[in-house]
């Protein structure tokens, strides 16, 4: 199973990873605010992740690390 980690404090909540994810399992956490004041992106269902790194490819802030 792929392991995706978000460096949440760097996230600016732009949502590019949300639309890049082919499995549709990333969303912006509407109930959380990071230290920059944004709703950070988070993964909703780790089991479904295929480790394609599409999210990390589109992330402008190097928030995401993908391991397999």
């Amino acid at each position, binding site marked *: 199973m*792929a392991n995706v980690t978000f460096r949440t404090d*760097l996230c*600016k*909540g*732009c*949502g*590019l990873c949300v*639309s*890049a994810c082919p499995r549709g399992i990333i969303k912006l956490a509407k109930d959380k605010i990071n230290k920059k004041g*944004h709703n950070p992106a988070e993964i909703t269902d780790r089991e479904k992740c295929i*480790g394609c*790194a*599409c999210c*990390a*490819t*589109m*992330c*402008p*802030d*190097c928030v*995401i*690390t*993908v*391991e*397999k």
Partner: protein
Amino acid sequence: MTVFEKPKSLTDAEFHYCPGCTHGIIHRLVAEAIDALGIEGRAIGVAPVGCAVMAYNYFACDMVEAAHGRAPAVATGIKRSLPENIVFTYQGDGDLASIGMAETVHAATRNENITVIFVNNAIYGMTGGQMAPTSLPGQVTQTSPYGRDVSVAGYPVKVAELLSSLDGPEFIARVAVNNVKNVRNAKKIIEKAFQNQIEGKGFSLVEVVSSCPTNWGMTPDNALKWVEEKMIPYYPLGVFKDRSAGKEEDKA
């Protein structure tokens, strides 16, 4: 096994760019190319004036800040005095295509052995969204509130096409970073632009069609759609010139 992590040629500094700004993606692609080619120790970057003015904080190699538009001239001096080093400039459209057009054209026609990364987002970002030389016909900006009127403001400058008409430059290409496929292709092209310099082939310029969600007044997602629908038809992607491959013009 790590599939994807932050490249080592980027420092730990947080990007100051607006949310969804593709400068971050392009910085990362440049850093990935530096990592892949193992040239971190001898790379020297030249930062522009514009949104990327603080690029020197983000790349973990030696960096020099140039006066507005003069990055190719500064890079020429560095490369000629330190020929073993790998010299690249990172410039926006206001920097390269407007005030720096003379330096760019002359560095290209001299076939200086440098790598130029040119970020085209069709607007002046840092100063608040004025019309740039690359703004599309009809595009609404701070200084063209009724849309760019080509009868008054003229037509956009297509830098890749313009430079590929010269005999001098080695490699001219245009890529985009609006989706995963294009980002992965951009990575290959940027790496090639650095590889050309290592092999001593000469001037390599990669134009990256980019977005500016803040000044376009769009969400980051819609800005990337606008790139796809409006910018790429006007600025077609592809390799325009690759002299050593014998390619004068081949729009992929």
